[in-house]
Structures are given as structure tokens and as C-alpha cells.
């Protein structure tokens, strides 16, 4: 590493910077005179910097002498440094860097570098300006009741969205750079005094071990820091909602944000998080408990429904009521395949259709979904491909998998449905049970940062059960989740309302009495 001392003269420095960055078409270099006497040069990548700010806030004060120094006749080079930083540059993020490699890394980040003859080092000014899209509604996690803001690509904006909701100095952001070539900033967020410090250290350790050339999205990091790589189940949650990140930080988790990615990662993650939504907590508990149960039913549906159908139709039709069994058999009369093949064909075509609708441009998407629905539904039945009941089953399954809020968890269950259907086709209900046992055992052996994946169900925790299948009233959940082993365990004050002694201030009886008096 070369220092500025070894670079020596003014021209040496210019040659150094030109040599590193000069080949680029978007690199700009401009020579000028500081205070009309010291030769200087300004460097920057022109498309990453804000030219207006550069002109008015950097170039102008450097060229004109500050008013308060008008009477000083002679400015020796030794004093130049102090004058520049203390009197001249009215720009908050400017500093003098000695090491030339810092200039280069500053330049590629969008900073401007000013080299002045006679000055040790160079002035590095934060002039980064990159076009960004506005803050929009989170597309993948819509709510009816709750905040409407979603993350965007810029890390700084995302951090400000979090800090705006979490206005405490204990909210800590630790930044690091990952990616040998992309140098992406990664922010590790937690709340000091809540999150277990061991967890924060472990997250930092796992992240610092990553040595790849590029990190283009938080999804890259997820695959490096998860505990078990060969499992369909996600062990890291992602979200594009700042309020969800804040809620998780308050529970004692750690959030990881990457510059350039609108999705924050949340660790550690347990399975129950994947069917909970923000809305569960913003709407009243009785209603949301019911809706959460419905979501769980949908989750189970999306996993086992087709396989149960196949095994009952092919092996144990005596289980279902006779009239219905007859109806099912009648519907299947024209279908040449066994039930398992029929279901598999329909499932696969459903998956193809779903994938196609995601990839297609929006204008065509509508048309495709109509055609697809027709093909999958009516036409398949009349062509003798599938029985009407199969179509009902497939439709229920697909809808069920859409009801799971987390896309990656829904994907896991969608995937596991296929081996289950095949097991059902071979062994009937027995096979389905074997498959489910394998899945359950696998989930029981999973861990996310040491936390068993099915916490708080297994290992059991009474506090946790209040927010597992139902969503208990907020004032029931006095403690943060025990499995996160937070420093500060209490969420609620000791005697927080609900208002127990509600005063009926507008009781009509009272008013009548008053009037009579």
C-alpha cells in the first residue's frame, strides 16, 4: 500500500488517480486554482455525483477566498489545510484522507476527490447522488390495516425508514462491506439492551466469513448464513416492510440489510413466523386469531390435500360416505389414468401456469391466466384428462398455497406436495403418513442460529403458545419470545391497560339523571 508521502508531488498524485480511473468514459477530471493561487484538481465519476452540489458547495468555496480571510494577505501552505476544512468548505461530509487507496474507494462510491498542490493527502467530499425510485407500497406483503411503506434499493433510505419507526439511540447499525468486487454495504441492525449479544456476534462472524466477488441481493447472503443448506424450509425470513423489521428487532432479532436490495433479512427465524403477518397485530385479536387459524388450514391444505385425495380414491374409498364415493367414481369414469397420475399431471400444469404468469409482462398476463384457467378447469375435464373433483382439489390446494404469507415457505410446502402425492400413489394413507413423519422429523431437527425450528411448540413454552396458533391479546404477551434469550425480557409495563376500570362517561342514564336534577 502506497502512502501519500511516497506519491510526493502534486503531479504524482494526479497521475496516480488518472492511472487508476482515467480509462473510464464517465470519469471526469478538472484542474483549477484554489483561491486563485494553488493549483488543484477535482476528480469524480460524473454520473454518480450531484453536479449542482459540487459546483456551488465545493468548487465555488474553493476558488473564492472566504470573506473572513480577506484581510489575510499571505496564506502559507501549512495553514491551507486548516483554512480549507475549517473556514472555506461549507460542506458537512468532507475530510482529508492521506491514503491514496482511500481516494480510489471513495471515488468509486461516488465521492469527489480534490487534490491540491502543497497539501498532504487529498480532500474527499461526499457528493454521491444516485437516482432512486420512490417509496412505494410493498408489493409482496400487502396489508389492509397497517403502514404502507416498503423498502427500496438504497440502503440509506431503508435505514432511515427503520430509524424513523425506532427513535431510540439503542438501535444499532453495524456496517460492513461484502463482495470483493461489488463492495456492497451490508448493515446489521439490532437493538442494544434487547438482542442477545452472542447472536449479534454470530451474525457478524457468519457474514464476515463470506468471501465472494459480488453480492447483488440479500438473497445471496441468506444462502451463506443459513444453518442447513439442503432443506426446502427457509431458515431466514425476508421482508420488504420496515414495520416488520422493527417489530422483529423489538422481539430481539437481528436484521440484515444490503445496499441494492429492497428485502431485509431477519434472523433467527422459526417456522411460526412464516404464517404470521403484520396485520395479525394491527387488527383486533379475536378476528385475527380466527384468520390465522384459516391460514393454518390453508397451509396444511396446500401440503396434504392432493395426497389425501389420491390415497382415499385409490386405496380406501370406503372411508368416505358411500354416496360421495359413487359420485367420485362416476366423475372419474372417463379418465384413463390412475388417480396419482391424474393429480400429478394437473399439479404440474398448475405449476407451469403459475410460473408463466409470474414471468409474463403484465399486459399479456391477464389473457394467459384466463386461458390457463380454462385449460386447467373446464377443458381438461371435458377432454377426459381429469375428473371434476380432481380439479376442485387442485384448485383448493393452489389457493391454499397462495394464502401462506411467506412466499419461500409456501414454495417449500408446494415442493413437498409432490413426493407426498407419489407416496400416496404407492402406499396410500400409510405412505402419506410416512412422508409426513419424515417431513416432521426433518423440521424437528432443523435449527436457526441454534433455535429449534418449531419453537415455541417444540420445545414447549407456555408464553410462546399465546402467539402460535392464535394471536393472543397484546397485553397477554408480556414477555419477548423466550427462545431468543433476550437481555430485556419484558415487553409490557407491569400494569399496562386494557382499561379495567372503564368509566362510562357518556352513559345515557347519567345524563338523564343530571337533566332531572
Amino acid at each position, binding site marked *: 500500500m502506497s502512502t501519500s508521502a511516497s506519491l510526493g508531488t502534486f503531479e504524482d498524485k494526479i497521475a496516480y488517480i488518472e492511472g487508476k480511473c482515467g480509462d473510464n468514459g464517465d470519469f471526469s477530471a478538472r484542474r483549477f486554482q484554489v483561491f486563485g493561487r494553488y493549483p488543484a484538481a477535482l476528480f469524480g465519476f460524473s454520473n454518480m455525483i450531484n453536479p449542482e452540489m459540487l459546483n456551488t458547495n465545493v468548487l465555488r468555496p474553493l476558488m473564492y477566498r472566504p470573506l473572513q480571510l480577506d484581510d489575510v494577505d499571505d496564506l502559507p501552505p501549512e495553514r491551507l489545510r486548516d483554512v480549507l476544512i475549517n473556514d472555506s468548505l461549507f460542506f458537512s461530509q468532507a475530510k482529508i484522507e492521506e491514503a491514496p487507496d482511500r481516494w480510489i474507494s471513495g471515488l468509486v462510491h461516488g465521492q469527489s476527490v480534490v487534490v491540491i498542490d502543497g497539501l498532504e493527502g487529498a480532500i474527499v467530499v461526499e457528493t454521491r447522488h444516485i437516482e432512486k425510485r420512490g417509496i412505494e407500497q410493498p408489493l409482496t406483503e400487502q396489508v389492509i390495516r397497517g403502514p404502507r411503506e416498503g423498502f427500496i434499493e438504497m440502503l440509506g433510505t431503508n435505514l432511515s425508514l427503520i430509524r424513523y419507526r425506532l427513535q431510540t439511540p439503542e438501535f444499532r447499525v453495524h456496517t460492513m462491506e461484502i463482495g470483493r468486487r461489488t463492495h456492497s454495504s451490508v448493515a446489521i441492525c439490532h437493538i442494544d439492551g434487547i438482542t442477545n449479544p452472542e447472536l449479534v456476534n454470530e451474525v457478524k462472524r457468519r457474514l464476515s466469513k463470506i468471501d465472494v466477488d459480488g453480492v447483488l441481493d440479500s438473497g445471496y447472503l441468506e444462502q451463506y448464513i443459513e444453518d442447513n443448506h439442503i432443506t426446502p424450509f427457509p431458515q431466514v425470513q425476508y421482508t420488504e416492510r420496515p414495520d416488520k423489521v422493527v417489530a422483529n428487532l423489538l422481539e430481539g432479532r437481528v436484521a440484515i440489510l444490503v445496499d441494492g436490495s429492497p428485502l431485509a433479512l431477519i434472523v433467527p427465524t422459526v417456522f411460526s413466523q412464516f404464517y404470521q403477518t403484520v396485520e395479525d397485530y394491527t387488527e383486533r385479536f379475536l378476528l385475527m386469531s380466527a384468520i390465522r387459524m384459516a391460514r393454518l388450514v390453508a397451509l396444511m391444505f396446500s401440503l396434504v390435500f392432493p395426497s389425501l385425495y389420491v390415497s382415499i380414491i385409490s386405496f*380406501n374409498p370406503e372411508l368416505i360416505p358411500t354416496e360421495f364415493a359413487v359420485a367420485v367414481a362416476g366423475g372419474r369414469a372417463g379418465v384413463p389414468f390412475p388417480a396419482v397420475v391424474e393429480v400429478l399431471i394437473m399439479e404440474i400444469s398448475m405449476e407451469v401456469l403459475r410460473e408463466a404468469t409470474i414471468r409474463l409482462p403484465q399486459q399479456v398476463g391477464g389473457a394467459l391466466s384466463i386461458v390457463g384457467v380454462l385449460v386447467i378447469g373446464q377443458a381438461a375435464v371435458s377432454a377426459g384428462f381429469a375428473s371434476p373433483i380432481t380439479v376442485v382439489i387442485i384448485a383448493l390446494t393452489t389457493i391454499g398455497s397462495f394464502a401462506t404469507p411467506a412466499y419461500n415457505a409456501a414454495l417449500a410446502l408446494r415442493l413437498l406436495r409432490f413426493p407426498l402425492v407419489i407416496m400416496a400413489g404407492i402406499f396410500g394413507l400409510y405412505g402419506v403418513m410416512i412422508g409426513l413423519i419424515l417431513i416432521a422429523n426433518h423440521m424437528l431437527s432443523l435449527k436457526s442460529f441454534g433455535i429449534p425450528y418449531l419453537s415455541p411448540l417444540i420445545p414447549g413454552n407456555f408464553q410462546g403458545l399465546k402467539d402460535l396458533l392464535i394471536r393472543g391479546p397484546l397485553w397477554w404477551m408480556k414477555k419477548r419470545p423466550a427462545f431468543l434469550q433476550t437481555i430485556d425480557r419484558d415487553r409490557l409495563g407491569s400494569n399496562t391497560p386494557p382499561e379495567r376500570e372503564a368509566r362510562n362517561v357518556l352513559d345515557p342514564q347519567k345524563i338523564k339523571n343530571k337533566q332531572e336534577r
Partner: protein
Amino acid sequence: MEPKRHITVIETASILVSTIIGVGVLPLPLFAVNAGDSGAPLITFVAVLFATVGVVLIAVLGMRFPEQTIVQYGETIIGKWPGRLGSLLVIGFFAVLTSLTAREFGEVVVTAVLKKTPVEVTVIVMLLLAALSVRNNLTTFSYIHYFYFPLLLFPALFIVALSLKNADVQNILPIWGNRPVGVTRGIITITALFQGSFILTSVIPHMRRPEYAMRASMVGMLVAGGLYVIIVAATVSVFGAEETKKLLWPTLELAKATSLPANVLERLDAAFLAVWVTAVFTTLLSSYFLTIQSASQLLKLKDHRMFSFFLLPFVFVMAMQPQNIVQMYQIIELVGRIGLFITIAYPAMLLVVSILRKKRGERVDDRSNP
């Protein structure tokens, strides 16, 4: 990395219950009725008491040596080679028990639902399932038992509750039986169904508080034994003693005879059998785990996992030895009786000798490693 002591009392109790409740529940009323016709529930109850004695012995032994499994303290108590011989017997017995459980359930499945499937296939599927799951550590092992615990308790109770519609109390009167013949034999056979409780010897060294092992085993025996008595009582009161004698798996017939209200499912036997896969799986898991864990401890190996597939072919071949169901049940009864020596007499002998020789394991100070 793995904290050594983490299994709670509830988890221990659920391990016991889900290990004990297994495929044995299906022919249980038949064994009981053969021994004491209408006195079947009483016979079962007595057998539960006997089995409890065995569990108490194991718990007391385990609490005396809270750091060790039976393979390890066996050597301490009666010397190196006799202890190893005892451990070898335990390993052999549980390997046989695993194979017989797999075979018995394989036969049930083949007879009741998958009529065209060869029994080899159902047996090997169950064994593979156990072998795959046994590769986890003891933490996951206890999680698995804890997770399935409600899944095997409630369907059984559910069937019993639904069958009460057809029950007649007269069928179980007089409760001491009409002309009991072969009472002792029946009690022994039923007691043998509780042999899975031997898994306690592997669990105690990992309990958070080994001194509560007795409480856990009492809870476990209460739940499992209670369920056994209830099932026998329900079956006999629905079918009557003489009818039950003609049924191969009376509990399954009980499920067949009941139907859900509102006719959602017309028959429950296939559904019951499907749910029962979990019960059998947990039993298999325990006995296979005990086998390979003891084997690896006998050979002083750190990791028990290498045995999981190594022993599989042997277990499978043993499972295929009985020629038919009749011979299989003869073997099961015989093995059960031999097993009582291993699961009750051997620990009893160890306990007596350890008291006489004043041997004790190191006490754990659980405050120091929470």
C-alpha cells in the same frame, strides 16, 4: 457445543408414553381376554402394576448413576466382562424387539389396508424410516417424541369415546372374570408390552434434573397404563369377551365399528391405522435408538450414527424369520417372556448388587451446568 442436559420431565414422560404405546395396542385386548375373559381390564391393570415395578427399578438405578447409561454402569457394578455380556443381551434383545415390532405392524398394514403389497415392503419402509430418524441426536429424539405425543394419545381416546355408543357395561362384568385360565401367562404377555420403557436408561443421563426421573416415569406409566386399561375396557365392553377372542386385532375392529357423527368418514379403521403409523414409528425409533446407542457405547464409539444403516439388514432379516402371523405371535410371546428377564430381572440384579457393593455414580450438580 450441544448442551448435555436438556431433556425436561415432560419430555421424558412423553418419551416413555410414546415408546410404550405402539403396535402392541392392536392385539392387546385379545391377550387380556384370553387370560381372563371379562376380567380383562383387571388383568391389564395388574400387568401395568408389574411393568411399573420394572420402570421404578430402572429409574432408581438411573438416579443412582445419573451420568451413565445401563451399558456404562453395568460394567461398573458387576465388573467389566459380566457387564458387557449383560449389555450384549440388552442390545440383542432390543434388536429383536425392533424387528418384531416392524414385522407386526407390517403384517397389520398388509392385512388391513395394503392387501396387495408384500409384507417385506411395509417392513422395510418402517425400518428405513426409523433408521433415517435415528441418525439425529438425543435432543431431536426427545423433540420427536414430544411432538407426536398428542398425536397418539388423542386418536386412541377419540376412538374409545366414539365407541362408547355401542358399549354395554354387562360385557365387562364380573370384573374378576368368569373362569380365568392362564392369568399369569396373560399378565406376563401384557407386561412384556411395556418393555419399551427401558429407553429410560438412555434418557436419564441427559435429563436436566435426573432426580425427577421417578416422577417422569410415574407420569409416563400412568398415562400409558391408563390408556391400555381404557382401551381393553372399551373393546371388551363393545364386543364382549367371547367375541373379542375371535378377533385378531380387536382395537382395529373397534375403530372399524365406530364412525364419525354426521358421516364425514364412514369407517375409521384406515384413518386410525394411518395415525397409528406415528405410534409405531415412535416405538421403533426408541428401540432402534436404544440398540444402536448401546452398541456404540459398548464399543466405546463417539458417534452412534454409523450403526444406523449397518444394523438395518440384520434387523430386517430377523423380522422376516416368522413364517406367518400365528408363528409371529408365538415368537412375540416367547421373546416377550425372555425380555422380562432382561428389562426387569437384569436391572433388579444390578440394583441389588450396586446396593450391596455400595456403588454410586457421581452426583450431578445441576446448578453448575444449567
